């Protein structure tokens, strides 16, 4: 197991480097001169030169690349091109909101999706199964941000149960602000988790070792929840890991719907303001999340499935 963890950790290094490289070069093909974009069409040429110098844009590409790598790896992204605020601070303010939203949504997705998926598999072809089918179809077709708009309309604007905008002040208020966005992403994720759990459990229930468990005299609920579900969870865990990232990217749109502070709001704000350094930093942080979540998923799977770590 230790060997597997080490091996998996080492694999992360080239991935991170590659991702950083991609982000760097992707942004170099962004059309327009960032200095002009930041200072405006009619800025004085010497102001533009000073700006380029300050950001290192007059350096050769390889120097910029290494400077960028150093920035990304130390987490020191310099200052926003537009308002001069340290990007590190902006990210630090935004991150907790995004992480809280992604985690809350994931918790809702698992709490609803797993049991519902297990029930639909056990009562295959029954009423619960039909409901699950309908739920999945809606979940797979309703865009999360549109669902957010509908929830906002119903529960904030008309019923006034939840606050409309922002992230909230103080713990309880923040929690209050978190509810609707988290439900938005959580229910969509629940549909996915449900379908995955259902198909995985149905597959496992056909296996011989499930019959072995019954043949030992194991009670039916334990056959399902101990012997079958544990095996069914292996593909479900992988799937949820992948989906956690989908939820994370979903926070971008949902933050916009609920005018909630966060990484997505920051990134999209950076894009529309053509704040090159901010966009670069935002993309690096998202990419970093992708790598970390993939790593965590693999390690979690190894913990559930004794066969993985030995490969």
């Amino acid at each position, binding site marked *: 197991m230790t060997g597997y963890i080490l091996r998996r950790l080492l694999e992360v290094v080239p*991935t991170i480097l*590659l*991702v950083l490289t991609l*982000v760097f070069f*992707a*942004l170099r*093909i*962004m*059309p*327009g001169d960032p200095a002009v974009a930041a200072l405006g069409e009619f800025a004085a040429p010497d102001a533009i030169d000073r700006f380029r110098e300050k950001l290192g844009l007059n350096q050769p590409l390889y120097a910029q690349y290494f400077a960028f790598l150093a920035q990304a790896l130390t987490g020191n992204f310099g200052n926003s091109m537009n308002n001069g605020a340290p990007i590190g601070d902006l990210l630090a303010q935004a991150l907790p909101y995004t992480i809280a939203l992604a985690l809350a949504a994931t918790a809702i997705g698992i709490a609803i999706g797993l049991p519902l998926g297990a029930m639909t598999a056990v009562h295959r072809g029954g009423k619960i199964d*039909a409901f699950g*089918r309908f739920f*999945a*179809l809606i979940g*797979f*077709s*309703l*865009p999360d*941000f*549109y669902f957010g*708009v*509908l929830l*906002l*309309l119903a529960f904030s*604007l008309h019923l006034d149960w939840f606050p409309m905008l922002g992230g909230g002040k103080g713990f309880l208020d923040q929690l209050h602000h978190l509810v609707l966005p988290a439900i938005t992403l959580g229910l969509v994720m629940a549909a996915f988790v449900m*379908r995955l759990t*259902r*198909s995985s459990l149905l597959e496992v229930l056909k296996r011989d070792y499930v019959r072995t468990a019954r043949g030992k005299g194991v009670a039916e609920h334990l056959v399902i929840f101990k012997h079958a579900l544990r095996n069914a969870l292996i593909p479900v865990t992988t799937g949820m890991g*992948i989906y956690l*990232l*989908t939820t*994370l*990217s*979903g926070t*971008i*749109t949902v933050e*916009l*719907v609920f005018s909630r502070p966060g990484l997505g709001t920051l*990134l*999209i704000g950076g*894009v*529309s303001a053509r704040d090159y350094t901010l*966009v670069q930093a935002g*993309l690096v942080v*998202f*990419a970093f999340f*992708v*790598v970390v979540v*993939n790593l965590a998923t693999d390690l979690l799977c190894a913990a559930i499935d004794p066969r993985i770590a030995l490969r």
Partner: protein
Amino acid sequence: MNVPIGKLTAIGGGLSLLLILLAAFSPWIAPLDPLDQSFLTANQGPTAEHWFGTDAFGRDVLSRVLFGGRVSLAIGILAPLLSALAGIWAGMLAGYLGGWTDRLLSRSSDLLMSFPTLLLGVMIAAALGPSFQSAVIAIAVALFPRFVRLSRSATQVVRREPFIDASIAAGRGTASIVLRHVLPNIAGPLVVALSLWIATAIRLEAALSFLGLGAQPPAPSWGNMIRDGMSDLVGDPWPAAFAGAAITISVLAFNMVGDALRDLLDPETGL
């Protein structure tokens, strides 16, 4: 399953076709010019004159939804097609040739795959700057590794069939074998994937243009209609509501086609 698969395919397929036709012929179907503003009739709910109401500029929402469909469905269908065209070839070559080609292609598509489509789309659209073209490129790139992986694994299965060896022995070239023997044999799963990914692409396009990274106003797309509608959700929720419903129905239709086709090809695994 209670509803026969053929029926679902027909409903989903018919609905998809209807949506495409409505979008394609919107200039003739739409009652009004989607860009025509009139402050006198701004922010109206559905009326006899404006079935879907009007937006903040007094523009007819029904006409905008129809014209928006042109943009949204065009991107939603064009991008996966482009992606499929490139991805299927790359995947078939990787699966057929193996070795370095395979390692290079599958490593890089694995890396791209580790990014959720929306995040990848946002990254690319952000890098390229918001426009119709960058939305197409962003979505095509986001889906590309998925086509590569699918056609690669399907090709690897076909590659082991004896008739491939027979063709090689008969002196057929790689391109000809791939085209004549591999492609027809992997077409089934690819068609299923294509229709499911059209659904994904429509959703992606909507999200991108909602974020302001897709087609630019004043030209309507479903996503930017919701974006515009957000500014006055209290006074006039109709543009956002109808645009969102249009997205949902389109995604639903293509998902139904994909699901039904998959069940048809592989009755065991379907939901």
